[in-house]
């Protein structure tokens, strides 16, 4: 990921100023429910007694806490939200956006910070109480059962797993020894993929009895009892020809 994306600086060049507004969670949740057009409310900016006042009022249809379209009388999100405005004193903030194609562009500079505050009334208090109750509920719960669970840990004549195992054995039968050359071919192709193998894995791959396989391995390979690849088998040096990555050639005796 060493590609450096050139930042599109048009936003900054035009000195586009933006507002950074902190919005309460419940409000943003309501906004998420907005219709496609995306209209959520209205902002009124006015001057009262020389002070700039900014208010936001939520749209009617978004006040319900339930699904959109319902006006649940019980709980309603407050509509009126005055903004508290601050200037950006100690920080220079810019806004950059990242598109899906990893294109970065600088959208603008933050000129004002604002906090969206609800008007505190009974309705709001009720809402907050509900929120609090929800958040204090523990995520995990211990329940007491009326009756003991009797479906598991019953004594069984033969466990399911064992039964399956025996069935498998019967169907597949004992592992038959095939021609030595065939086994060698299988082994060599396996060792082409990886250098170190456990004997169990080899048995799995070749489907040969362990003794037979060990005999063959003793012939063409060696056992690592110590070191990084413990208790693994690998081919003898004269049989292997590993290059750093892909292609290798195995040479038979």
């Amino acid at each position, binding site marked *: *990921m060493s590609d450096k994306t050139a930042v599109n*600086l048009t936003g900054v060049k035009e000195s586009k100023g933006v507002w950074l507004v902190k919005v309460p969670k419940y409000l943003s949740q309501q906004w998420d429910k907005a219709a496609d057009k995306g209209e959520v409310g209205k902002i009124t900016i006015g*001057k009262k007694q020389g002070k700039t006042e900014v208010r936001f009022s939520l749209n009617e249809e978004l006040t319900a806490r339930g699904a959109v379209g319902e006006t649940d009388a019980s709980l309603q999100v407050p509509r009126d939200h005055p903004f508290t405005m601050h200037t950006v004193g100690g920080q220079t903030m810019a806004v950059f956006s990242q598109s899906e194609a990893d294109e970065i562009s600088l959208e603008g500079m933050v000129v004002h910070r604002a906090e969206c505050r609800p008007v505190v009334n009974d309705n709001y208090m009720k809402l907050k109480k509900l929120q609090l109750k929800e958040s204090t509920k523990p995520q995990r719960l211990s329940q007491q059962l009326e009756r003991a669970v009797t479906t598991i840990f019953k004594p069984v004549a033969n466990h399911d797993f064992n039964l399956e195992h025996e069935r498998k054995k019967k169907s597949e039968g004992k592992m038959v020894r095939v021609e030595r050359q065939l086994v060698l071919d299988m082994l060599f192709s396996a060792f082409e993929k990886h250098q170190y193998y456990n004997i169990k894995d080899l048995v799995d791959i070749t489907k040969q009895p362990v003794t037979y396989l060990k005999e063959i391995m003793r012939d063409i390979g060696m056992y690592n009892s110590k070191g990084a690849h413990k208790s693994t088998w690998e081919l003898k040096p004269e049989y292997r020809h590993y290059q750093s990555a892909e292609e290798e050639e195995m040479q038979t005796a």
Partner: protein
Amino acid sequence: MTSLGSSSSSSTEYTVRVPKNTSKKYNIMAFNAGDRVNCSTWTQARMERDMSARRIYGEEESAEGAAGSEFGKKQREEARRKKFGIVTREFKVEDQPWILKVNGKAGKRFKGLKKGGVTENASYYIFTQCPDGAFEAFPVHGWYNFTPQAKHRTLTAEEAEEEWGRRNKVVNHFSIMLQRRLREQERGCEDDEDENEKSGKKKKKGGGRGGDLRIHDLEDDLEMSSDDSDSSMGDDGESKTKTKKDTGKGKAKKKKRKSSDKEALEDSDDGDYEGLEVDYMSDESSSDEEPEKGKPSKAEEHPKGIDEASESEEESEEEKQNEEETKEEEEEEEGKKTPVQVEKKKKKDSSGESESSDDSDIEGGTASALFMKKRTPPKRGGRGSAGSSRTGSRPGTPSIDSATTSNTLRAAASKLEQGKRQTQGPSTDSPAAKRLKMEPSTQSPAPSGKSTPQPPSGKSTPSSSDVQLTEEAVRRYLIRKPMTTKDLLKKFQTKRTGLSSEQTVNVLAQILKRLNPERKNVNDKMHFYLTE
């Protein structure tokens, strides 16, 4: 943007839209006000994720394919981790820091670290005003704090600790980075002489500034200096800049700070010098032994002789080292002898029998300093020169001195040899036989060949390196400097002369009677001397 209402009391309404298309993710790029970042001055900028943490997190195995890989290794590793409950945090690209480069290569660099917990309890929205007057609100996805990255060199942690230790002494802080750069250069091109010359030149320039820094090192030579190069550079620097003003200033400041320096020194470990063996702290040792002697009462000189013998064993270790050095310069046979003589001379010097006590103090002091530095033998010019200068024992004296002194000593030895053969021809056959064992090559023809009287001043003939207890030798010693009987005995050690301690004592007594030297009392000790 902050459009107010047109009239004083009226207000304007704008609709707020939250666009639903979420193709673009908005983030905040926050700078510190102190950095005075002005985005409008940027001509071009590049930004990318800092992926350096990936290899720490990734822990990718080296071999994915055949060589070196194991069958089912990954699964096994995973199972193992689960068993031990090792939870490795995922490497999330989203959380990686940004690297922002402004105005190309020569411009500024910023690193943007993600600020956590921004979107947890409250959501941030960016309100922008559209041309139609409505506001559009975009949710903020992440917050990154961008800090400028230093392009200048900084000290590493170890170096910073070093400098912290020297904070009381270092006056010139500009030289710290300069020295570091020089050090790096030296390390980088060791066999490149040009570089060294360059650094040498720089030393001259920087020596002026670094001079006061270096002086501190020299004065605190007992302190453990981690950089030997510093001290060596310091020597050069000091010598070069002695006349410059800076060093004067530095010295003055250093003197002012002496008290604080002492405090700083006390901070260092106390037990550093405890276990070090210090040899020959001058006057005291010999003064203890002198009252025993008094007059040349030979009977009591037995234990003395043995003591000296034991002392000589201590010396022999030093001698061996000197031997190794001198073998390069001298022939082997003489190499064995002259360092012995040199050692003896040195011991004689340092044991305090001297005209001026200052010299001996210096001797003792430097000797102790020498021995504190334990085995730095190559530099140790432990050659008390045959001449009157005692400078040979100072460290840093090149070993060239040793060659010249050894030449004269060789001559002296040869003189002794001839003198001895003249006076004690037959009586020294047995010791000669003993000496034969030590130096068979030169000795065998010598006694017979040189029994013919030769002038004692034959300096050219290389002789055996035995020290003969002859009147000539004693006379020479006493002419050169006043000596006590103990010192004389030290000169003619039993090992070297082949005589037993009793014999040495007797012979020496006879010689002294014959010579009848003048006596002088120095430091309550009887010294003999001759004037020629």
